[in-house]
């Protein structure tokens, strides 16, 4: 009987991690629906980006207040995970504060003290984040795409984190009381700069009640963490894991450099080569159908773009810097990312149900992202610059414009006029190329 809690704990841990793994594998499968991209270049630059942008949060602090609060929560969660390690060992083996018996007492006390201080900072950060969303109502959290689930999701995450931190501090407070009562199993360990102010609330409680509080907080805390871990998959919060690979795979060439389509290069080269026989049969082994130009659905995007979609945490910094959005147009770069993820998830569900993707008569274009949004973009790169985790909404907009223009000839009519001018006379306006140097002699 005495091992029952160890067994229950191990089952809960295995279930929590197991279910999470299943879902992560789904994400990987979905991302692989995109086409492969070669990201073996610029390795040093990529790692340096991970260190600066992801680990170092360099883009978060462009806005100092949320940047600082985010660092509280980020550092808090990373460091407090050392405590979770101890909790897991204790849970499996029935020990209590096992690291105390391994580490020097001074170091252990220092660690516990820093966890407590960080827990308080996380609590402060999260409460202020909640205030910014719900009381101060910062504009970027109240845009049209933030209605319903995205809005609730953001708040649920904050409640989760508040509860976890309170449980952690409560557990330590009760532990302290038990330690001072000299209860067996509760070795005197740790230093409690924050929870010492909670402990007096427990004065006069019996040993049994204190143990129930301590064990209750301990169990709820670790179960809460496991539930939260599994909540990630259903929420916008995956960035706590995916931000790192996403930054690694982020753009490492100048932002103004858009990729040249190789499939087009081949065709243009053939068109310009006077020696090509226009009636030649395609070479043996050549792909029968020419590649589709641009993107109308998520399968036409790259794996990096799909990883971008899962990484987006809907902070809306991109949208708040977007000139089109600022001036009331429908385009919101954040919505581009949210739509991409929603469509990808829909396709993932379809595969789960049917074993393979059964066409559902829908696509990313029109069913999720409208043409009006796509044509409102000025390609100014403000969204790309603003993203704290190197997401590139502009590349998706560009791919979808390519589909509209090259597969559907569906550019706005004024653009067609300009493009015809470029084609006929080498300028977007109807001037003759032979007049290009007339300015020399004009006044």
């Amino acid at each position, binding site marked *: 009987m005495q091992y029952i809690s160890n067994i229950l704990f191990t089952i809960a841990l295995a279930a929590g991690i197991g279910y999470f793994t299943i879902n992560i594998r789904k994400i990987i499968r979905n991302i692989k629906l995109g086409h492969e991209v070669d990201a073996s270049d610029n390795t040093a630059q990529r790692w340096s980006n991970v260190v600066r942008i992801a680990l170092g949060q360099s883009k978060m602090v462009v806005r100092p207040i949320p940047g600082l609060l985010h660092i509280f929560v980020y550092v808090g969660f990373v460091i407090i995970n050392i405590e979770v390690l101890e909790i897991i060992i204790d849970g499996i083996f029935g020990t209590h504060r096992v690291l105390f018996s391994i580490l020097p007492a001074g170091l252990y006390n220092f660690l516990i003290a820093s966890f407590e201080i960080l827990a308080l900072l996380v609590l402060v950060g999260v409460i202020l984040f909640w205030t910014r969303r719900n009381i101060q109502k910062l504009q970027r959290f109240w845009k049209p795409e933030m209605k319903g689930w995205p809005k609730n999701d953001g708040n649920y995450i904050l409640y989760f984190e508040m509860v976890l931190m309170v449980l952690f501090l409560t557990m330590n407070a009760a532990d302290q009381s038990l330690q001072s009562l000299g209860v067996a199993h509760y070795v005197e360990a740790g230093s409690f700069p924050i929870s010492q102010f909670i402990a007096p609330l427990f004065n006069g409680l019996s040993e049994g009640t204190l143990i129930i509080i301590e064990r209750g907080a301990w169990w709820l805390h670790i179960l809460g963490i496991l539930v939260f871990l599994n909540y990630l998959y259903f929420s916008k919060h995956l960035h706590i894991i995916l931000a790192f690979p996403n930054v690694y795979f982020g753009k490492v060439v100048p932002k103004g450099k858009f990729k040249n389509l190789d499939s087009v290069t081949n065709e243009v080269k053939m068109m310009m080569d006077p020696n090509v026989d226009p009636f030649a049969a395609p070479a043996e082994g050549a792909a029968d159908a020419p590649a589709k130009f641009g993107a109308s659905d998520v399968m036409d995007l790259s794996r990096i773009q799909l990883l971008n979609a899962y990484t987006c945490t809907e902070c809306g910094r991109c949208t708040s810097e977007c000139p089109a959005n600022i001036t009331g147009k429908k385009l919101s770069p954040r919505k581009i990312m949210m739509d991409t993820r929603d469509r990808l998830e829909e396709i993932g569900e379809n595969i789960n149900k049917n074993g393979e993707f059964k066409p559902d008569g829908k696509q990313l274009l029109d069913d999720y992202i409208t043409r009006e949004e796509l044509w409102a973009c000025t390609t100014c790169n403000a969204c790309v610059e603003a993203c704290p985790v190197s997401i590139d909404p502009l590349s998706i907009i560009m791919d979808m414009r390519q589909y509209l223009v090259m597969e559907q000839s569906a550019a706005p009519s004024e653009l067609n006029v300009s493009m015809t001018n470029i084609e006929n006379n080498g300028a977007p306006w109807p001037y003759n190329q032979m007049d290009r140097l007339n300015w*020399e002699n004009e006044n």
Partner: protein
Amino acid sequence: MSEQIKVPTMAEYMAQGKKPEVLFWVGCAGSFDDRAKKITKAFVRLLNKANIDFAVLGTEESCTGDPAKRAGNEFLFQMQAMTNIEVLNGYEIKKIVTACPHCFNTIKNEYPGLGGTYEVMHHTQFLKSLMEEGRLKVEGGKFKGKRITFHDPCYLGRANGEYEAPRQLLQKLEVELVEMKRCKSRGLCCGAGGAQMFKEPEAGNKDINVERTEEALETAPKIIAAACPFCNTMMTDGVKAKHAEDDVQVLDVAEMIANAEDL
């Protein structure tokens, strides 16, 4: 204007068996747009003054393909690019300077993959290097102490990380440089990029150029300095929309330097 400007073409150079130090890529706006042509001429006057051995392609130049590419027409872009690259490579061009950030970005970043690799400079970078080499002298002149704000072109700034060259030129003019709230890497687009110049904007509650002009006017400038022919048009229209054209001018950095010298 004082004396006739000298604009040799590559064809003339070729005929004489010479090669210029640098090719001046004029661009469509610089060739055809009435406002932008003034910038082109101001820049040429500076090149003449500094005795730069340069040439233009003239009638052999064609659109870089930037608006086509950003509109999604990769075919048209690559046709333009490859045609231009054939001309440029035929003349064995090594170094290009242009007063248009869109041409600058496209030739610098997107032509190499199609066989056209050159050293490409924006005219503000080129003028800055001329000054550093002592080939061009710039002093405050008539702009000394004037309150001026600089609007970052997206395709020079964010797209290629060049924020300082135009500002250093303005500082040489001894102006009082005031920054807008959104500047440098967070600068707001004028609204013309991504082929927007050639179409009506989508429905919204304001035009982007008006939003940006309002921001510029908040700094109470005498001049809004630009470094892109399209930004220039957008900001000029914005200033007119705010009925501020009697108090605020929109000038290219090159024009300011040429004007300061009374060229």
